[in-house]
């Protein structure tokens, strides 16, 4: 059984009698212990996808449709209190900005303990011992001291480790991390990513890593899902996708990234701007910026097709090939 099976996930918001659908038709699966990278630019809906799986979208008034099967249970059918038992226990979440994700008025140790007590039903002492163990595992120097400190007294890297401790302390089956290292410096980013990889492999936790940084994905993930303007455009094995990207967007995106030793003048750009949810174009949403656009791309949205080798892509270029072949 898959760990997570997301089918036709869509979220819509209604404001002033206008409805916008920032994400729609998102389907993918994750196996236990797998590391899936979800990549996309601003407005691609990658964070919203994570929030929807965590059941956090209703907080901001979003209506979720489709199905999110976790461990065989459709999370969308759970009641609010049932969902509370899943959140933080079986699925944990690392939010975008570690600098501001801890409650400023409580000691960081108590914030780890809070989740442990709630889900593992531990007493204060056992929870504290476990929290200190976790901090040790996360290579937090002098855990006893840090336990007593407040968030503003810690550096960004340390805060992020505390947030990770909160996330993995309850031994979840799935960890969703939303841009976990974007706010950190490169050298600290490398430390944190290495920790991430070690811990999830060690404990067999499935990791969904959401980022705009293709470099991070290339180094850490097994599978990749590429989002553009609220749609999943390509999904596949990490090496396959990076070696031979199928979707014109994925290909163009990879060409936009400078690397050390790149030849001058060879940096390609994708002209135009990422559309926002209020003005998504009709048909394939990448069509206005695509170099290979065909007439029907601007008429209707291409279905996701599965190619040989398990890669999936939503592009008319491939529907024709598969039909022909």
């Amino acid at each position, binding site marked *: 059984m898959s760990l997570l099976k997301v089918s036709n996930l869509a979220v819509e918001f209604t404001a002033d009698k206008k409805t916008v659908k920032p994400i729609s038709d998102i389907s993918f699966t994750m196996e236990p212990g797998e590391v899936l990278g979800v990549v996309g630019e601003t407005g691609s809906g990658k964070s919203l996808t994570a929030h929807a799986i965590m059941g956090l979208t209703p907080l901001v008034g979003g209506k979720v449709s489709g199905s999110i099967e976790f461990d065989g249970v459709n999370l969308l059918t759970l009641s609010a209190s049932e969902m*509370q038992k899943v959140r*933080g226990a079986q699925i944990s*979440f690392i939010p975008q900005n570690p600098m*501001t*994700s*801890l409650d400023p*008025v409580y000691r960081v140790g108590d914030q780890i303990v809070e989740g442990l007590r*709630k889900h593992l039903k531990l007493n204060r002492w056992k929870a504290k011992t476990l929290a200190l163990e976790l901090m040790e595992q996360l290579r937090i120097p002098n855990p006893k001291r840090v336990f007593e400190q407040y968030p503003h007294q810690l550096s960004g890297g340390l805060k992020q480790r505390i947030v990770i401790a*909160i996330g993995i302390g309850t031994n979840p089956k799935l960890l969703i991390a939303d841009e976990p290292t974007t706010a950190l410096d490169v050298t600290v980013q490398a430390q944190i990513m290495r920790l991430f990889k070690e811990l999830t492999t060690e404990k067999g936790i499935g990791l969904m890593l959401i980022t705009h940084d293709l470099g991070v994905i290339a180094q850490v993930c097994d599978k990749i899902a590429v989002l553009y303007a609220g749609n999943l455009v390509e999904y596949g094995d990490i090496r396959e996708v990076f070696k031979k990207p199928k979707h014109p967007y994925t290909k163009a995106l990879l060409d936009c990234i400078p690397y050390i030793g790149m030849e001058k003048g060879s940096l390609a750009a994708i002209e135009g701007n990422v559309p926002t949810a209020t003005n998504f174009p009709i048909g394939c949403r990448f069509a206005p910026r695509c170099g290979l656009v065909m007439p029907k791309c601007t008429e209707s949205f291409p279905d996701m097709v599965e190619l040989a080798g398990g890669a999936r892509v939503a592009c008319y270029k491939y529907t024709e090939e598969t039909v022909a072949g």
Partner: protein
Amino acid sequence: MWVYVLRRTLLLIPIFFAISVVIFSLIHLVPGDPIDSLLGPGSSKGDRAELLALYGLDKPLPMQYLYWLKDFITGDMGQSIIEKQPVADMIFYNLPFTMRLGLLSLAISFFLGIFLGIISAAAKNTFVDYIAMIIALLGVTVPAFWLGLILILAFSVNLGWFPVSGSGSFSHLVLPAVAVGLGGAGLVARVTRVSMLEMFNKDFVLLLYAKGLSRNVIIVKHVFRNALMPVITILGLRLGWILGGAVSIEIVFSRPGIGSMLLTALFRRDYPVVQASLIFLTMAVIIGAFITDIIYSYADPRVRDVYK
């Protein structure tokens, strides 16, 4: 922390001097003097000079201030020109009444305000929210004296639950304190609501939900606890505004107190009384603000660190 408290306490001394200088000079700007009202018609220039010398009003202003200050510090606040009794006695007779009224009003402001603020923030954009906010808005828009009069009409005249005026027992204190406290409650409720709603949008609240905590725990243990900081700040800053209503309320309920004493003295141009009661009221407000500031810097770990 204690060093900080001590430093802040010492800072009250220059504030006291600044305030006393300002009040002293302002009062001497008031035209007309009480001597005229003491002197009957047909009195001579000599009588006047004698009286002026008696109250020390013939000396240059800075000298008068220094004399006054010396006396004030030793507990002698001078003689009331009209009442002919020591100002200190008048102050210490009236002060407890104002203190009781002030403290009970503040308690009402704080607890009622916080209660209204929390329920309206928790039930944002529902019927409960609207009702709570209308109560809060009325508290801020209605002047205390009018509310006092309406409360008398409703609860004393029609229902006969509370006495109309006077100051003897606790039941005398209820209506005045409600009249003053409702304004403060409105203020506190509005600040609590806004600051809680602001907290709901903070990143850390998202993580709390993601941890699987229940909404009630998040609201009370985290969102409210954080929202309390700005509430305390505003409360300290607006203490004077909340207690300002007490002056007119003492008149409405014919209660003794510094406010009504000040007002009577102001009409009769009784300088020493006006001066002393203004200084007492202002210092009370400043000390109150000082206490809230200490509470604030203790309650917020971030501020606590700055003053370590």
